[in-house]
């Protein structure tokens, strides 16, 4: 076991993938010499060369569009979009081309492209640097959408995403890049939890809290605090946002009878809405309370001095947990 920051864990995972398959390549803005603005690709160009770790022109549509062409040629590009708010210039290539090519070719063309996107707020950034655009992609058939929450997950999930033959949108919790945790870099990828499975982070009996990405840690903190008040909170890290691992979710909520979904993205038409609908369909008679959601408001991401109000924090999560008992 090694203690690594989440950024370094991704770096090690990418290095493993580059070593394992000569067709894997990394491309994006400032990913080469600089090593990425969050240093996720630090040192990789030096070790694998400019053809495999490529600094691109500053054009997001160009990054994804040429990655599609490289994938058509047999490569497995791992693209970095520098910040969440900069993915939108590439949306056409992602939604109209990348997501649909396997379908429209009736399986003859596979595009194993990974798009890494640092997402979420909490770092005091200027606008367009703190967003959570995951639901746009979860809504797009043909894409797999995942989010990692800690160093160990980051290390295995990035390798699983690169090994997957579907296009994968890979969200990284940017405010957790410098969090450290134990990572077993000797573990075999075959033993890793599959990419489409959720993971129970904290076991509990009274209420299920579902989350992903940066707020998983906040949910764990909430579970500890609730435990002090005698409430047993189960925290599940969804990991995969498309497809959702409904079996794990249903198994937990059927047992606890209560469900709270937490994400940074706006609550309105967010992933929580999809989960609430599915949980209601499947667990109607087991539910003790409506499924509640905690997340961003129906506003643009606010200026940084207001973001503490916008982001789900310990107290808002606990408030929602309490409300599932009050109803």
């Amino acid at each position: 076991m090694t203690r690594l920051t989440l950024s370094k864990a991704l770096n090690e995972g990418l290095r493993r993938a580059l070593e394992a398959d000569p067709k894997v390549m990394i491309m994006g803005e400032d990913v080469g010499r600089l090593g990425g603005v969050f240093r996720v690709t630090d040192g990789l160009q030096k070790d694998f060369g400019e053809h495999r770790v490529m600094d691109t022109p500053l054009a997001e549509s160009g990054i994804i569009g040429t990655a599609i062409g490289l994938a058509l040629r047999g490569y497995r590009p791992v693209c970095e979009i520098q910040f969440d708010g900069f993915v939108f210039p590439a949306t056409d290539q992602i939604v109209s081309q990348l997501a649909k090519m396997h379908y429209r070719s009736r399986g003859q063309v596979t595009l194993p492209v990974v798009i890494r996107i640092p997402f979420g707020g909490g770092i005091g950034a200027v606008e367009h640097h703190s967003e959570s655009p995951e639901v746009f992609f979860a809504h797009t058939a043909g894409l797999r959408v995942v989010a990692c929450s800690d160093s160990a997950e980051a290390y295995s999930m990035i390798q699983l995403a690169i090994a997957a033959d579907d296009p994968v949108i890979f969200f990284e919790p940017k405010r957790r890049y410098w969090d450290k945790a134990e990572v077993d870099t000797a573990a075999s990828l075959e033993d890793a939890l599959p990419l489409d499975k959720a993971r129970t982070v904290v076991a509990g009996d009274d209420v299920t809290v579902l989350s992903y990405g940066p707020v998983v840690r906040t949910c764990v903190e909430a579970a500890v605090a609730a435990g002090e008040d005698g409430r047993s909170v189960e925290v599940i890290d969804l990991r995969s946002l498309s497809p959702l691992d409904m079996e794990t979710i249903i198994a937990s909520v059927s047992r606890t009878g209560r469900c709270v979904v937490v994400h940074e993205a706006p609550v309105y038409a967010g992933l929580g809405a999809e989960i609430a609908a599915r949980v209601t369909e499947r667990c109607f008679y087991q539910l003790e309370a409506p499924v509640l959601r905690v997340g961003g408001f129906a506003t643009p991401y606010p200026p940084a001095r207001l973001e503490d109000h916008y982001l789900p924090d310990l107290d808002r999560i606990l408030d929602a947990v309490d409300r599932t008992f009050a109803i």
Partner: protein
Amino acid sequence: MTVETGGATTVAPQDSELIQLMTPEGERTENPNYPLGDVDLKGLYRDMVLVRRFDTEAIALQRQGELGLWASLLGQEAAQIGSGRALSPKDMAFPSYREHGVAWCRGLDPVRLLELFRGVSGGAWDPEEHKFHLYTIVIGDQTLHATGYAMGIQRDTAEDEAVIVYFGDGATSQGDVSEAFSWASVFNAPVVFFCQNNQYAISAPQERQSRVPLYQRSRGFGFPGVRVDGNDVLACYAVTKKALQAAREGQGPTLIEAFTYRMGAHTTTDDPTRYRLASELETWRLRDPIERVRAYLARSGEADSAFFDEVEAEAKELGARVRAACRELPDPPPSAIFEHVYTGANAILDAERADYEAYLDGFEEAAR
């Protein structure tokens, strides 16, 4: 502020900037920069006649309700056959959605092209088998795919391969095309940008897209651009051949503007009489890409009437085959909706499929 709304200037550009090896009257001209070498002019004629016939049949099939839509290539046969025949077997072509002539050159059965327009598939031929990518409908997207593919060729150090990508005058306004120009240029990618300037993006004349001639667009990106008479199959062949060879030799991208004219409607839903004059079409009819070759072949004695009869008979046969094959393209079963969204299992999708199949089975059981 006044807005210029004048019609398209569709007169041929200055001769000095237009590469032409055969005049509209069917006279051969020489250009020392574009030596022709051995070229099978009769073969090019045959190709053009056959794809025009296929196109005519497809329009008729749409009128009969067999196709939902058709995008005609009428008038662009020389641009497509000339460039298409300039490709070597290993070169990869990325079409827009009107490149039926290029598809023909790549050996793709034209009936496969009808699938997309009939609505039975996304046009699911194997791109690598034919070295011809799927049609791309979102304007300009494929220029980036082609550039990326060319960057893959560079990584494979495959020095005998190049890429050609087709797009239109309207596409030059798209950001993706500018991005593709940038990328191809800075990476010196072996890609030829083949722009068929057919003068209109549906109703918008070329002047609405650009203040400079399109072939000059490449200058600012740092690679050469050339304008060719797009209705001259020999010039299109020679210019494309040279650009592809330059790409293979590591000289990077070239922009080719094939100056041509969309003689038909944008698609079968379009009515071009609303935005252009009949006299303009008449002017371009005199520059017909097929007629000039026929005139040359007949006058020079390179082909006799038996040859022309033979091609005509072959065209009729193709038409009959396409008509019959189109009508026989079956509707896919409902389960096809759910296939190939992902490469493997997907719990959410698989559950939807199971639910829908059970729902459909319910009707069958009720009918029993």
